[in-house]
């Protein structure tokens, strides 16, 4: 491989930064999930909804399930973090927030490179993912 080829096949700095952040984020979230799941199942923190109620209702639609287990929707789980079952949402949220965090770093990189087309795309993606995460859409009550 010539030096020119070697340069061309190298990933961009933005790609490397994105990859590095992702690898840490994913394994941290998986670790969090395993720890919180252990806390939940070992009953170290009491659960908000009894496991038997969950197993009796998980064949019902989400609205009926939320009603039966008296569970919140949207970001309501944050107020129940002292409960073993809702503690698990930290791992889910961290995993699902990883892309937004990585995009913020990407946006910074594109702006510093004056790559305005991709800076706008990155900004719009952050906006789309933030709206999805906010709970403003599709978190209709029960």
């Amino acid at each position, binding site marked *: 491989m010539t030096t020119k080829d070697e340069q061309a096949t190298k*990933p961009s700095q933005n790609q490397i930064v994105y990859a590095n952040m992702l690898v840490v984020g994913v394994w941290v979230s998986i670790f969090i999930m395993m720890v919180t799941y252990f806390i939940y199942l070992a009953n170290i923190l009491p659960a908000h909804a009894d496991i038997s109620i969950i*197993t009796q209702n998980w064949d019902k639609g989400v609205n009926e399930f939320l009603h039966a287990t008296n569970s919140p929707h949207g*970001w309501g789980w944050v107020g129940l973090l002292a409960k073993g079952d809702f503690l698990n949402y930290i791992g889910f949220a961290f995993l699902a927030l990883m892309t937004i965090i990585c995009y913020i770093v990407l946006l910074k990189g594109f702006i510093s490179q004056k790559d305005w087309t991709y800076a706008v795309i990155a900004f719009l993606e952050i906006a*789309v993912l933030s709206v999805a995460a906010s709970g403003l859409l*599709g978190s209709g009550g*029960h």
Partner: protein
Amino acid sequence: MVNSRVWSPGMLFGSMIAFFLTSPVIAFATELGATGGPDKPWWFWPIILFIFCFILGILAVMAGVGGGVLYVPLVSGFFPFHIDFVRGVGLMVALAGALAAGPGLLRRNLASLRLSLPVALIASTFSIFGAMLGLYLSSLNPDIIQTCLGATIIAITMLLLFSKNTEKPVVTNQDAIGMAFGLRGTYWDDGAGESVKWKTHRTLAGMFMFVIIGIVAGMFGLGAGWANVPVLNLLMGAPLKVSVATSKFLLSITDTSAAWIYMNRGCVIPLIAIPSIVGLMLGSLVGVRILAVAKPKMIRYMVIGVLFFAGLKALDKGLGLGLLG
């Protein structure tokens, strides 16, 4: 003397799939799934789900398909969970797998950030609409979603079976949109021992396809690698390796927006989600190791067969025919 071919990895895993499909795990799940299994202790389902997803993770890697596309039809067909929760967890499973695969693909410059970002914006926006539409239809009647899921899965098996991807498509002239976005790159092909330059064409048509891909991914919680690859490779002219890697990375963005919609709606139950995510990820790690020594072609055909059966089962369930139990 024992014939060594009998014990080849391909045969071994072929037998494993046959065992898997006829195994007590599936049989038990199916039988209890019909009744909800109320007489079982609470820990029974997480354990059986973990084992199921671990095997699914191995098979998904070997068959070259995403975890989500296997998870949703199989778990909704054989486990007692409502389709709302299966789709929510299916997206988390696909998201975790895509996020875990992303770093390696980006570092090797196989997944292209420049190719991913514009189409990811389209797919992730429309996956929100897909997720909302799916949840709305499910609230009207879950059988609508089951039927549509069954039809989609059967269409996916046809696509997996008959789509003839091209290793290195010839793109003579790049279109103006592709040029404006800088949709080109170079990667090192280990097999050929050369660097491969690529660029895209038919960018607008490709971007339109990502509207449909986003809606389907969000609606059924499937992930969408099965659709991303043909669009990037056959329509837009990206090399197969770049298409596969970029598709996997794309899923991490598309599935994030839909996953948030399902999560905010309450469709992610930790008791189901964590054994599924961890089981599938561990299975994928094992699958990657086995892949290095196995010939996965037969496995791929068997998994497509299983997927076809799962699609038929979803159709059967959705239409209330009761032909498949």
